[in-house]
């Protein structure tokens, strides 16, 4: 009998249905020859939503392959080896390598052949992003475009308003150019109304996810990080759709109800942790292992912000869910207005993407904000060889925590390449960490 009551999430089935629905849509589009657009999911995915299309995002697709590799190694090792055989080296983004492997092997993890898109549209945010889809386009023989993405600096850096304005204009102008380009390469008419709706829904669904994360400040936490992976994915895959907004509204109500009734994600929550970087998707059992000690990871800067819109509130000195256009009293009427607002949303409120560019004080402030407000006892840092983006500043963060006496555990691995993860050694480190923070295994 645990310390807290727990029960399964009611909207679990809906999350699964929506997630699989995205891939079913892509398969149908592939088979019927209708429009598919591909790119990183951190692209401005509301942009191609001005067309009737299905969007294939590289990161969640890579994670799905890594996960499928647990049952069938050909989806993990096999695809990695296929990309290595074509001379793509092991030190590159593991999602990219697995994606290239899937394309070269002409296999789609959800069934059938790899779905070649009408064109690839990417944003350039980390070292890999831009190149990833340039290479995919070269192999696929389809057009490629990329929006350069220079996020605002963290609040700690006091960036001038003029600098922000220039970044916003730069991004907006690129978006407007990309719309013309998409019309040209697809031969289809861009529908402004659809695009404006997509911008509204993207802002709303990512704000709602941030609100869901806020509920997790409750003790006991209503979601653990494993649950979050299955929930934030809706925003990752389809945040520009109305169905995502509807899903998060239902989820938010359910989470608030759980918090009010003291329903825990993990019945023996004693030690609240956060994680850094993407997890090793092929070995998620490490999160279950923490539970044997009464420890539970209840979030991450990554899980909160990958598909969350967060705004810094100066008065409260906190990060809070950003306000979507309607909530902010803004009605978007034209393509230009939508591009302008969308640029601001991505540059100002997608805080994860800031941390891929800027290390140091800003990220530390956000992590400290999570530690304080989500009442965190310790941190687990995945020194992730598969993602150069989230690796930015990880060792500085380790040092920041050490200086403040915040318990931190580092383990090395790779988000998608199972060959670069040592389960035994990671378990050994977790055991040592638990011993140092005074936790022993809970008797069964």
């Amino acid at each position, binding site marked *: 009998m645990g310390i807290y009551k727990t029960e399964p999430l009611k909207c679990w089935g809906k999350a699964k249905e929506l997630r699989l629905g995205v891939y079913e849509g892509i398969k149908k589009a592939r088979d019927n020859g209708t429009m598919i657009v591909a790119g990183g999911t951190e692209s401005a995915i509301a942009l191609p939503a001005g067309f009737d299309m299905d969007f294939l995002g590289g990161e969640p697709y890579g994670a799905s392959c890594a996960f499928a590799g647990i049952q069938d190694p050909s989806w993990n090792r096999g695809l990695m080896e296929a990309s290595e055989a074509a001379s793509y080296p092991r030190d590159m983004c593991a999602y990219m390598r697995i994606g290239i492997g899937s394309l070269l092997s002409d296999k789609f993890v959800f069934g059938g052949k790899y779905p070649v898109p009408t064109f690839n549209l990417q944003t350039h945010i980390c070292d890999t992003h831009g190149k990833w889809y340039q290479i995919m386009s070269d192999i696929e023989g389809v057009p490629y475009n990329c929006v350069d993405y220079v996020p605002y600096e963290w609040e700690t850096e006091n960036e001038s308003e003029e600098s922000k304005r220039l970044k916003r204009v730069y991004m907006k102008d690129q978006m407007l150019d990309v719309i013309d380009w998409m019309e040209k390469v697809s031969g289809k008419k861009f529908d402004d109304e659809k695009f404006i709706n997509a911008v509204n829904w993207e802002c709303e669904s990512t704000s709602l996810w941030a609100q869901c994360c806020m509920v997790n400040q409750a003790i006991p936490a209503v979601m653990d990080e494993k649950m979050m992976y299955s929930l934030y994915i809706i925003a990752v895959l389809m945040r520009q759709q109305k169905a995502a907004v509807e899903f998060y509204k239902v989820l938010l109500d359910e989470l608030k109800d759980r918090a009010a009734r003291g329903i825990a994600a993990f019945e023996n929550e004693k030690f609240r942790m956060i994680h850094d970087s993407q997890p090793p998707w092929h070995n998620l059992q490490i999160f279950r292992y923490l539970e044997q000690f009464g420890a539970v990871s209840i979030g991450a800067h990554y899980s909160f912000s990958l598909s969350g819109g967060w705004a810094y509130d100066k008065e409260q000195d906190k990060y809070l869910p950003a306000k979507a256009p309607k909530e902010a009293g803004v009605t978007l009427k034209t393509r230009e207005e939508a591009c302008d607002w969308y640029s601001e949303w991505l540059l100002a409120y997608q805080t994860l993407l800031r941390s891929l560019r800027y290390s140091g004080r800003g990220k530390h402030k956000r992590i400290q904000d999570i530690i304080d407000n989500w009442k965190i006892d310790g941190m687990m840092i995945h*020194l992730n060889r598969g993602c150069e983006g989230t690796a930015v500043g990880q*060792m500085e963060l*380790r*040092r920041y925590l*050490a*200086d403040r*006496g915040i*318990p*931190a555990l*580092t383990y*090395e691995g790779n988000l998608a390449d199972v060959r*670069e993860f*040592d389960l035994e*050694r990671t378990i*050994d*480190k977790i*055991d*040592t*960490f638990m*011993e*140092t923070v005074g936790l022993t295994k809970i008797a069964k």
Partner: protein
Amino acid sequence: MITAGADVGSKTVKVVILKDGKIAGKGIAIAGLEAEGAWENAWADALKEAGISRNDINKTVATGARLKEVKGFDEEMSMVTADAMAMHKLNPEIKTVLDVGAEEGRAIKVDKDGKVSDFAVNEKCAAGAGAFMEAMSRAMQVSIEQFGEEALKSTANLPINAQCAVFAESEVVSLVHEETPRPDICKAVCDGVSDRLASMARRVVVEPKVAFVGGAAKGMGLRRSLKEALELTEVYFPDDIEFVAAYGCALKAAE
């Protein structure tokens, strides 16, 4: 009360027997493919020195990378906690412990009560561990002890840039082909390993006094390089440097 502590490491097994808090016997044996034989041999030596039989031991606590390969202990503990307990007992002023075993290096912060307040372990690469030093001494055709002595003869600063043991070895081979004097190569290896250890140690914030333990800490060359890399004027090297973790386990058993 008689207690024992054992450290079943990747390369050697160490056993320490405590009688009323004092070391009564020690044993060390090289573990090859099977740790079990070395476990028995180390026990036999320690028991012989203590002049007792296994039945006289009240409690045994054990640690180490190959612990799963042996049987006959009452409790297990982590290397990190074992090192901290031992060093606190040996010198309560120690705040940071660096332990370099055959396959792993560890940096441990110890609080005023001898508890671990933070730790870092070198990740997969062996370049910060004893096995790498051994491989390099084989490449230079000297024993590990001579390797350190050779290093002490040099004042040259030749960089070994590779972070990976495999590539570092090829850098050493290049230095050999360039007919670089052996002492300079030995020092370059010690400096390279120390750099990796120092950067791992900085993760936990190095605070004096610092102790350096583990099999690789016997090497005089590495001792000097590490001191320089961490800009320390003083480093504490306990006697019986390889037995520190086993001693910590024996102390735990006596608690």
